[in-house]
């Protein structure tokens, strides 16, 4: 399953879900954005699944906090864009 968003500024942000039954077991984030350091994106993907961020009260805040705590920087999308794609996520 894929969700896709054209972000303000023209970049594309996409989510691919891998499900086992009703459970989301993997989320892959792709697009033409920049992410620093690059290897941090995989950690962000794991964080989204481990914390089931789409069920959180404030997904945007959770994502923003994760990025700032780890000193990761996304250029081309904002935490709110990712939170938007995660809304109501289910397999």
């Amino acid at each position, binding site marked *: 399953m894929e969700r896709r968003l054209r972000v303000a500024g023209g970049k594309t942000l996409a989510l691919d879900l891998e499900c086992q039954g009703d459970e989301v077991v993997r989320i892959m984030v*792709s697009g*033409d954005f920049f992410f620093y350091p690059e290897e941090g*994106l995989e950690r962000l993907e794991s964080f989204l699944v481990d914390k089931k961020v789409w069920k959180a009260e404030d997904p945007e805040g959770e994502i923003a906090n994760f990025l700032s705590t780890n000193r990761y920087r996304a250029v081309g999308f904002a935490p709110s864009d990712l939170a938007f794609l995660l809304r109501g996520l289910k397999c």
Partner: protein
Amino acid sequence: MLRKRWRVLRYEKGNAAYNMALDEAIAEAVAFRVAGPTMRFYGWEPAAVSIGRFQKLDEVVDMQECERLGVEVVRRSTGGGAVFHDQEITYSVICPEDMMPADINEAYREIGGWIVNALKLIGIEGTFEPINDVLVNGKKISGSAQSRRKGIFVQHGTLIYDLDRA
């Protein structure tokens, strides 16, 4: 900002895999301190499409059409979008991260400024357009993409000088 002596690798053409592999090798050599900060200029033969590190190949490239046209396809180590490389000069700037501004946008501005200055030397008035473009007469002629890994800064960029629309 330039505190060390730069090595300049003069323009040469290579195929897509070679071009990206050489940049990777240089980055590794800089990381292991067996090479100094390096600027490399190169072209693509045959023409090629490079895609960004986080892009999905099947979504952004028509592989069948590329194969039919003899256009090679390669993934960059840097983020950003798909780029068609043909009649352009490509550059890479590879150096220890601490030689560049810590702020990503400032680093783009720094290297964008080098390009604007170089264009001025040949009588072309260019402007840097944040985040990472250089414009001439309001149109983009140069884009770039940056990565920072294991203390090494890599910026790829293009400078288009012609376009074969056929």
